[in-house]
């Protein structure tokens, strides 16, 4: 018998930039060495403030390995904690040229104690560089900030921004107030000064208010869907709040919130803007103009209409230069770039979505 078994070969495919990779802690105490003694003690004594009843239990049961790919569990530690597995399972076979880290677990975004939130953000940012980016030059970090405490958030942005291994500023898409609120504006001023985009990603159950405008979802399916509702509300808040008028250099990336809703939101805002423009005299352009100039979207989880070509019309409207490929590795709804787009694309369109848009937006090289 011949030797019929071979390891899967890495295919020579177009290099991609993946805008959503989640690194996890190997052990619950992984951040301790990155905390000052005062906050190390606080962490060990009180733990983090997570807004759910049982900190070790997910709020909604999930059918797949607690929300992870069931093939992404390393021998030691949780999914997403093993760099070698990330390389073998994703970076190498998919040919990732750059991968952007989205560090969600126990960062500062959900924490309510202001100084502890700042300390956890610092620790998470140092940990990303130390544990991931230094070890794997294809990876880039996102600056986690204590977003509910803008002064501390600005300090953290200024501490990190000169290091080009940080390529964006991360905010939760479930903030305490809609993100157009002026109390967040110091963060946008700092982002503009640093020349870094803002990346919004759904994080836990931040803010303490229900994730829909009408109460808590009943099912995980529903909870997963309302990532979209949050993103729409925040996009409208940024635009109508005048954030982009005040900070013309600001760029916002909506991660994991879908994109097919964007034209409908723009049409609706434009229609009413005709009637209500005196209420928002700070806006100098149509709401849809701000949307097209300042907002980018990532692809995962991509909408899958029955007729895949219907997505083409939506992307034609949004612009082929506004979408960024993302995988969400190692989460269960991971998207492989070879399969996530179920309609034909030109070579130019493919290059934009999978690589060039992100290279330009995040100034990767």
């Amino acid at each position, binding site marked *: *018998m011949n030797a*019929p*078994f*071979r390891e*899967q070969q890495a295919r020579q495919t177009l290099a991609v930039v993946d805008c959503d990779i989640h690194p996890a802690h190997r052990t619950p105490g992984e951040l301790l060495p990155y905390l000052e003694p005062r906050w190390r003690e606080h962490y060990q004594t009180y733990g983090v403030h997570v807004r759910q009843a049982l900190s070790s239990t997910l709020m909604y049961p999930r*059918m*797949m390995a607690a929300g992870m*790919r*069931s*093939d*992404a569990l390393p021998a030691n530690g949780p999914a997403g904690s093993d760099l070698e597995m990330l390389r073998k399972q994703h970076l190498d076979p998919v040919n990732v040229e750059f991968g952007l880290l989205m560090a969600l677990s126990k960062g500062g975004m959900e924490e309510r104690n202001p100084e502890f939130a700042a300390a956890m953000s610092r620790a998470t940012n140092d940990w990303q560089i130390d544990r991931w980016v230094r070890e794997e030059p294809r990876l880039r970090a996102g600056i986690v900030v204590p977003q509910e405490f803008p002064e501390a958030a600005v300090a953290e942005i200024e501490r990190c921004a000169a290091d080009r291994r940080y390529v964006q500023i991360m905010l939760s898409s479930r903030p305490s107030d809609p993100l157009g609120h002026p109390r967040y504006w110091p963060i946008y001023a700092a982002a503009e000064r640093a020349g870094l985009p803002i990346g919004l990603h759904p994080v836990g159950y931040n803010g303490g208010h229900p994730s829909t405008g009408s109460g808590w979802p009943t099912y995980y399916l529903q909870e997963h869907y309302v990532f979209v509702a949050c993103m729409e509300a925040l996009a409208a808040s940024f635009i109508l709040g005048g954030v982009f008028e005040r900070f013309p250099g600001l760029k916002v990336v909506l991660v994991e919130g879908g994109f097919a809703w964007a034209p409908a939101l723009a049409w609706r805002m434009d229609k009413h803007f005709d009637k209500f423009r005196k209420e928002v005299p700070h806006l100098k352009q149509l709401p849809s103009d701000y949307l097209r100039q300042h907002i980018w979207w990532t692809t995962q989880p991509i909408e899958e209409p029955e007729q895949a070509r219907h997505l083409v019309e939506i992307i034609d409207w949004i612009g082929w230069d506004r979408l960024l490929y993302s995988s969400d590795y190692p989460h*269960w*709804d*991971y*998207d*492989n770039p*070879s*399969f*996530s787009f179920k309609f034909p694309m030109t070579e130019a369109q493919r290059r934009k979505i999978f690589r060039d848009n992100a290279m330009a937006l995040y100034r990767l090289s």
Partner: protein
Amino acid sequence: MSRHVVCAADELPPGSRRTAFVDGREIALFNVDGRLHALLNRCPHGGARICSGIVTGIAQSSGPGDYRLERHGEFLRCPWHGWEFELATGQSWCDPRTTRLRNYEVRREAGGNLVKGPYVAERYPVVVENDYIVIDI
């Protein structure tokens, strides 16, 4: 259709699974309680290598309050998005109209039946010790 030996039968005992490259394709092989299944190791939805998926049954219900997991060991759940495929046919039960996982005929054959060509070479005594797993592509 061509026959391919993929491994000796004792390399795929009941309860085990493995992959094999056959004719340029990666095939996922399962032995579930002695039943052999061979499927293309690529989920038709998102491209996952389904060999690491969960072998399971299918939830059936005749109405509210009545839920049963039936046909245990007959279905494979993709490790990423959870699409379920019948191992024996490759048929998806999430969207039976449009999605199926490519499956191949697979069986166990005695080693002595497998290799016959147009020439007869000088013969030496040979002992057949094992059966092999064979699939048709």
